[in-house]
C-alpha cells in the first residue's frame, strides 16, 4: 500500500513540474508589470527599475524559475509582491475557508445525490423519479453565480434571514462564521448535487438490474436492506470517482462563488493575484492546487476499494 502511494506520487511529479513551468511562463506572458501596478500611473522609470530589482524581476527567466523552484522545494513559496506577506501563510489561511465551504457542500451534495439518486432509481419512472431527474436537470442548467445572486436577493435582502456578504473567521465567532457560510454552501450544494444525482441514479439503475440484487431479494431481505447494503455500495463507486474529481477541482478555488458571497477564499486570492500580477502568489497557489488535486484523487482512489474491493487487485 505504502509503495503504491509512493509510486502514485512519483508518477505525479512530472505533472507537477510541467504545471509549475507552465504557470511560470503563462503568468509572465500576460502583459503587465507588477512594479507598475505597485507604483501606479505616474511612476517614473528609475523607481520602476528599483522595484523590479527589489522583486528580483530583472533577472533572466530561467534564473528566476530555478530560484523559485529551489525555494518551493524547501517549502518556501516566497512573499507576495502586493502585501509582502509570506505566500504559504496566505494560501493556507485562504484555503481553510475554501476547504470548509467545499467539503461541507460536497458532502451535503453527495448525501443528497446518494439518497435521491438511489430512491429515484428504485422507483424508476414513477412521479418521484421524474421529480428527481427533473430537478437535477434543471439544477444542471442554472449558472452557480446566478443562483447565488438570487439566493442573496431572496434570503439576504428580501427576507433578511441570513447575513448576505462577507465572512468571519471561526476563531472570531463560530456562530457568525457558520451563518455567513450558509448561503455559499447551499449554493454550491445545489449546483453540485445535479450531476451527482444523475450519476448516482444511472449507476443505481445498472446495479438494480444485476443478479446479486435479485439474489439478495431472494434471500428474503427487505427492500431497505437490499438498497442500503447491496445496491448502495456498488452504485456509489462510480459516483465516488466523480466526487473525487469534483473535490479536486473545487478545492482549487471556487472563484465565482467566492466572488458572489465576498468570501476571502483561495479562488478569489488567485483571481486577484492574477489581476495584480502578484507572481509569487499565483505560482504558489497553482502549485498548491495542483498538489491538492493530485492528493485528493489519490485519496479517492485509496477509498475506492471500500466500495469496490475488486480494485485492490493491482
Amino acid at each position: 500500500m505504502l509503495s503504491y502511494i509512493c509510486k502514485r506520487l512519483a508518477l505525479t511529479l512530472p505533472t507537477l513540474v510541467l504545471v509549475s513551468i507552465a504557470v511560470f511562463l503563462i503568468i509572465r506572458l500576460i502583459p503587465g508589470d507588477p512594479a507598475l501596478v505597485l507604483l501606479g500611473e505616474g511612476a517614473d522609470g528609475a523607481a520602476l527599475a528599483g522595484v523590479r530589482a527589489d522583486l528580483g524581476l530583472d533577472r533572466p527567466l530561467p534564473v528566476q524559475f530555478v530560484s523559485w523552484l529551489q525555494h518551493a522545494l524547501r517549502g518556501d513559496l516566497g512573499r507576495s509582491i502586493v502585501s509582502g506577506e509570506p505566500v504559504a501563510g496566505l494560501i493556507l489561511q485562504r484555503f481553510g475557508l475554501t476547504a470548509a465551504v467545499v467539503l461541507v457542500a460536497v458532502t451535503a451534495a453527495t448525501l443528497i445525490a446518494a439518497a435521491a439518486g438511489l430512491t429515484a432509481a428504485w422507483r424508476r419512472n414513477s412521479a418521484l423519479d421524474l421529480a428527481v431527474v427533473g430537478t437535477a436537470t434543471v439544477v444542471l442548467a442554472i449558472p452557480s453565480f446566478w443562483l447565488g445572486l438570487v439566493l442573496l436577493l431572496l434570503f439576504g435582502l428580501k427576507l433578511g434571514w441570513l447575513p448576505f456578504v462577507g465572512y468571519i473567521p471561526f476563531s472570531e465567532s463560530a456562530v457568525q462564521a457558520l451563518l455567513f457560510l450558509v448561503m455559499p454552501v447551499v449554493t454550491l450544494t445545489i449546483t453540485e448535487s445535479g450531476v451527482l444525482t444523475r450519476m448516482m441514479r444511472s449507476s443505481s439503475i445498472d446495479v438494480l438490474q444485476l443478479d446479486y440484487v435479485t439474489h439478495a431479494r431472494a434471500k428474503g431481505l427487505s427492500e431497505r436492506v437490499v438498497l442500503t447494503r447491496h445496491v448502495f455500495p456498488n452504485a456509489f463507486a462510480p459516483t465516488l470517482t466523480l466526487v473525487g474529481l469534483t473535490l479536486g477541482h473545487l478545492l482549487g478555488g471556487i472563484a465565482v462563488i467566492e466572488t458572489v458571497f465576498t468570501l476571502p477564499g483561495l479562488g478569489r486570492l488567485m483571481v486577484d493575484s492574477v489581476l495584480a500580477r502578484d507572481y509569487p502568489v499565483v505560482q504558489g497557489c497553482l502549485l498548491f492546487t495542483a498538489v491538492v488535486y493530485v492528493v485528493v484523487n489519490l485519496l479517492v482512489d485509496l477509498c475506492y476499494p471500500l466500495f469496490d474491493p475488486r480494485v485492490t487487485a493491482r
Partner: protein
Amino acid sequence: MARSSHVAHVLGTLAVSGALALGLVAWQVAAAGTVLRARFKSDIVSTSPGTRRDENTDAVLLHVVEGLVASREDGSPAPMLASRWTVSADGRIYTFTLRPDVIFHNGAPLTAAEVIWSLQRYLKPQTRWRCLAEFGEHGIARVASITAPDPHTVIITLDRAAPMFLTTLVRADCGGTGILHPDSVDADGNWRAPIGTGPYEMGEWRHNQFVELNRFARYSPLPGARDGNAGGKHALVDHIRFLIIPDSSAARAALIRGSLDILDNLAPSELTGIRGRPDLEFQQVPILDCYALLIQTRDPLLSDVRLRTAIALTIDTVGLTKAITWGTGTADNSPIPVASPFHGPVEAHLRKPDVGEARRLVRAAGYDGRAIQLVTSRRDPQMFDIAVVIQAMAAEAGIHLQIDTVDWPAHLSLYTVGNYQLMVQSFSARLDPTLSFGIFIGDKREDPRKVWDTPRSRELLGQTMASADSAARQALFDTLTRDFLAEVPAVALFNSSRLSVVRSNVTGYRNWTAAQQRLWGVGLN
C-alpha cells in the same frame, strides 16, 4: 437582521468582492475609547511615507507625519512644522523656521537635526522616495545643500529657482515629505514604523482587516481652522480605524447597520438607496481628477488631426458625464479641473457635439471604416462605461471603434509604453494646472506616456513651471487649453466628485478636492 426591511430597501446593489465580516470583527474587538471607523477598498501597502505607497497609504500616513509645509484646501503651501519661511530673491534659497513646541510620538522634541536627517533620507536613492525624480536631472531643481544654522532653522539651497518646490513637498504621493524621527528606522536603515509628529500615531495594522491610528495625546495643533492638510488639526477621537472592506455593498450594509461611520469614495452607481436616508449624510465635492480619452498621435490613422477632431465631435460630453457619473460629475473638456482656481472661461468652454461635421471630417481624412482599437479596463466602473458610450457615439459618425477590455496591470503597461490607438484613462487629483497639463505634454521618445508632443506645448508648459505669477500662468494655461482643444491629442471628459456618506452622529467630516480621507477634526456625537 431585525432591520431587514431597511437592508432590503437600501441594499440592492450587489456588486461583490470583499469582506464585510472582517470589518465587523474589527469593530467587535475595538479597543476602549471612542473609535471612528472609516473604510478602505484595499489594504495599505506600507507604513513608510512616500515610498511604497498608494492612495490609502498616503491617507493613513498623512495623519501620522507632517512636513515642513502642508497644502491648503486650494493646493497652496501653508506652514506646518515650519512656522514661517523665506525665499531668496533668486528663488534658490529657502529658509524655514521650525515651530518650537513640536514633539515626536516618542516624546523627542523636533529640531533641525531630525528635519535634515529626514530630508537627506528621502534624497537617498535606496529610500526609493516617490518624488526623488523631481529633484533629479529632469525635475524641478536639484538640492544643493541642507543646513541648520541653529536647531530651529533649516536652510535648503537649490541649484536653480523652482516655483514648484513647495507644492512638490506637500504632495500627498510624496508622503507630504513628512519629517520622521530617526528611530523610525533601525540601525541598518531598515524601516520600522513611522515616528512622526501628527495628531495620530500608528497603531495596529492587521493585514487585510484594518489599520488603526491612536490619538497622540501630546499633539499641539496649530491655531485656526482646518485647511486642507494644514491649519488646526485636532484629534477628536481616541482611535481611528480604517476597515478594509473591498466590497461596496458590504460596506454600505456596514454603514447602515452602524458598523461603519464614514464611507468615502463611492462610485456613483453605488449611491442607489443611500442618498436621502435621514440617518446618513451625503457629501459631494468636486475633485481635481480627470477622465480622458487618450489618442495615440503617432498612429498612422490618428496622426490626422481631422480624424481626431471627428472623434471628439461625436462625443456628447455633457450627456456622457451625466449618464456615467449619475449627475455627480462635471463635464470638462479642459485638462484643468473645474474645481481649480485656474479654471476660467476659456477652460469652461465645452465642445459642441456635431455629428454632421464629424462625418465631413471623417470623409476628408479618408477614413475607410477600419476598426480603431479602444483600450479600457474595469478598474473602476466609469472607465468601462466611458468606452461603451464613446463607442456608441462614434458609431453615429461612421467611426468603428473596437473596445479592448484588459485588466488594470495590462492597461497600465499599455499606457506606459504608449501602445494603443485610443485609451480611456483616469488621472488622480493634480493640485496644480501645470501638473494637470504635465499628464499630456512631453517628449514621446523619452516618455511614451505623453500624448501631446509638440515643441510649442512643451515650451508653454516649461513657462508655467518657471512662473510664479498667477495672471501670467492663467494666460499660459488659456493658450494651452485652446491648443489642446484644437489639436486633440486627447479628449478631456469630466472631473468626478468625491462621494461620501457619513452617519449623522459624525461631526466635522468634510471632503475636499484632494480626495484624500482626512479624519482629524472629525468627532463622534
